[in-house]
């Protein structure tokens, strides 16, 4: 049961904007001493932004941070550490060229004088032994030589070592993502002991079972807001998933898609991920929009690239029956040609069709660019301006124009809506559905669950494999979450 203890930290009405994106929209959040708070929500719900604020790495644009009853005006990482608040972030932060002991020293300036290396080694070795008995890691190991799982163990253990600064609250952001079941269990048991001894923890995990079993209180976030806070015992898995989701606005799009769906069109793509062991494969027909879902980096992009490569060169396990174009998600490294105008950036995929004899016709190139400027609403006075004169969203539209303006019957989308404003998104969704109705096939990898509403069919990926294959009628947010976050699945 929650003890009526004092707050360690309290955020009142915290706000954060990144450009036009409201990452946090007035969040109230607090942690009292001796409790473990579970924090859940989708990618982009605002969990990480909120935790960055607690740890002091991000400053709120609005609202107040109160630590133990004192309002903090100049809150920073250094201040947070002084106050006993630490964070283990999702991105591993050990210096790969240093030993474990040296990495530990970075967090403990108090370890000075001759023999600091020994002191640091003893400190981290004792903590590793306490959390992960029989861990098999030596303090002299170089961080870069360790497996990712062991690096994560060191990272976690390091956060719990104490020298000069106090230790009251530890933020664990996906601490078990690289751990196997056994070490994850050891860690969570340690967290329980730490909390029982009066410490506090914030536990972020996509494995809902971990949160349900180990947290005292669960906070659910969605779209930059806290949508539910309750004792962990008051939640079960289904209620949690339902609260994270948001199943209202999808019905009308669903109906639209169902109506537009062609009956039995020819198969355009048939592909099996390289690591697929069962017989599951991805099949896309003309006019279909196929979603690739699941957590980021679980093999969706790899499959798209394999399909792209298979269009020009034979590949086992993948059949592609029509020309392919790809819309990049990472614009700077995969899409944009920085020296070129908007028109040239659009035309590059269609050069063969823009020719008049042997030469590219500037007039046809301009016509193509002008057509898509109107159609997709690229906001620029002149398509011969450099591509970087456009805002990020409009650059992305130009990349869509490149793909849709080409002869490609299959369009691969590699999470192209990352960091794009909502207005642009809605315009592009309409366009994609319109083009699909004309017979084009779309394979759409997205990390934003709402985008899957535009799809006829969704394949959920986990560890490079398709783990679920949901048709339009079966497609519910809960199913996607259960398959991709699935501890049971």
């Amino acid at each position, binding site marked *: 049961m929650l003890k009526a203890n004092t707050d360690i930290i309290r955020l009142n009405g915290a706000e954060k904007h990144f450009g036009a994106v409201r990452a946090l929209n007035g969040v109230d959040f607090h942690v009292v001493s001796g409790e473990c708070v579970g924090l859940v929500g989708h990618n982009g719900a605002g969990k990480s932004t909120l935790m960055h604020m607690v740890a002091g790495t991000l400053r709120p644009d609005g609202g107040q941070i109160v630590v133990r009853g004192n309002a903090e005006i100049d809150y920073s990482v250094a201040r947070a550490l002084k106050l006993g608040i630490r964070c283990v972030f999702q991105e591993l932060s050990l210096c790969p060229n240093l030993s474990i002991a040296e990495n530990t020293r970075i967090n403990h300036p108090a370890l000075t004088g001759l023999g600091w290396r020994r002191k640091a080694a003893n400190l981290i070795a004792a903590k590793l032994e306490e959390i992960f008995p029989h861990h098999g890691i030596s303090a002299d190991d170089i961080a870069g030589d360790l497996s990712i799982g062991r690096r994560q163990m060191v990272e976690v253990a390091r956060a719990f070592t104490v020298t000069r600064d106090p230790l009251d609250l530890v933020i664990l952001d996906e601490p078990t993502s690289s751990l196997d079941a056994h070490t994850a269990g050891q860690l969570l048991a340690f967290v329980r002991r730490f909390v029982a001894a009066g410490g506090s923890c914030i536990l972020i995990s996509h494995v809902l079972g971990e949160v349900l079993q180990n947290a005292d209180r669960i906070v659910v976030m969605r779209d930059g807001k806290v949508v539910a806070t309750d004792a962990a015992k008051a939640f079960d898995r289904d209620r949690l998933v339902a609260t994270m989701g948001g199943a209202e606005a999808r019905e009308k799009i669903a109906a639209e898609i169902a109506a537009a769906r062609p009956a039995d069109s020819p198969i355009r793509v048939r592909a099996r991920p390289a690591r697929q062991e069962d017989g599951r494969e991805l099949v896309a027909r003309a006019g279909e929009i196929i979603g690739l879902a699941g957590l980021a980096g679980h093999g969706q992009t790899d499959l798209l690239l394999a399909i*792209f490569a298979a269009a020009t060169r034979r590949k086992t396990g993948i059949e592609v029956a029509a020309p392919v*174009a*790809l819309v*990049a998600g990472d614009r700077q*490294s*995969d*899409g*944009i*040609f*920085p*020296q*070129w105008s908007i028109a*040239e950036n659009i035309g*590059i*995929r269609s*050069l*063969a069709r823009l*020719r008049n004899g*042997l*030469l*590219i016709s*500037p007039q046809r190139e301009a016509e193509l660019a002008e057509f898509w400027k109107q159609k997709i609403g690229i906001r620029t006075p002149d398509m011969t301006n450099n591509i970087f004169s456009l805002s990020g969203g409009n650059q992305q539209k130009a990349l869509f124009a*490149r793909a849709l303006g*080409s002869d490609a019957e299959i369009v691969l989308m590699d999470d192209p809506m990352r960091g794009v404003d909502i207005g642009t998104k809605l315009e592009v969704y309409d366009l994609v559905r319109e083009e699909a109705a004309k017979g084009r096939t779309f394979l759409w990898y997205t990390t934003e669950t709402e985008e899957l509403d535009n799809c006829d069919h969704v394949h959920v990926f986990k560890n490079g494999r398709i783990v679920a294959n949901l048709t339009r009628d079966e497609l519910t947010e809960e199913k996607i979450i259960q398959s991709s976050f699935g501890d049971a699945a």
Partner: protein
Amino acid sequence: MTFVKSLAAKPWIWSFLGALLVWLATISFTGGYGGGGMVTAALSLAVFTVIVGVGQMFVITLGPGNVDLSLPANIGLASAVAMKVMDGSDSMIVVGLLAALACGAAIGAVNYLLIWALRIPPIIATLSASFIIQSIDISYGRGLQIKPPPGFADFANWQILGIPVLAILTVLFTIGAAIALQRMIYGRSVLAIGQNIRAAWLAGVNVGRTRFLTYTLSGVLGGIDGALLAGYFRGANVDIGNEYLLASIAVVVIGGTSVAGGKANVPGVWGAALFLVLLLTMLNTFGVSAGVRLLLTGLIIVGVITVAGGEKASR
């Protein structure tokens, strides 16, 4: 005024301006004597730098790390092949030219093969290839100077109204190269690859074929250059191409082509080649010693690259 402004915005204008300044400095030193002859000589010599410079320009435009260092060896071998095949007979001129061209094409193709199949960085691949080519050249030509047929030597030195015919043909060729660069799929592909090779692949550009064609083109131009040089200087030898290693790269850079790739400039190659040749003439006229001449040439190239690089960083 807008005309001047738009002219000033062209990166190639500076190389022509430099050439003009050097020429004016020289004829003011000689009191106006020999100005016309100097231009004729400059055109005759610049031709050879322009031909390989264009090849090098396409290669460099492929992006960071791409460069053809085998050009001098290529020129040397092709000059020997052309002269041996022509064998002093006017009836074999065309066959000899084709042989030089084939020799250059083969060298270019081998260069790309090394880069592609063995994944060797172009700078190493073309440099090591050039050692092999040079060895072949030495054993093939036996270090002897082989004379061109009289008809070919006359052609290489032919002038109409003080303008070398080779220069006129080379101007036509560079116009073709400029059109290929801006208006043909090949040129667009080179520019796209130079800006971002991964994005080019994902935009459907045939990256492998374009790079192969580019290295082969550079080889072909080196081969033709070798044959023409042998005709102009009335004889082939192993060292005939030596000065074109630095010169081919210098004209590309001075001419306004980006060393980082993706941005090329054909007229600039002409301006830079004229500038370099006139600069040498000027230093000779001033009676500067060979050592100082090389020193100044090196400093000027470093200076131009610094200025060009500085502009880019401030953007």
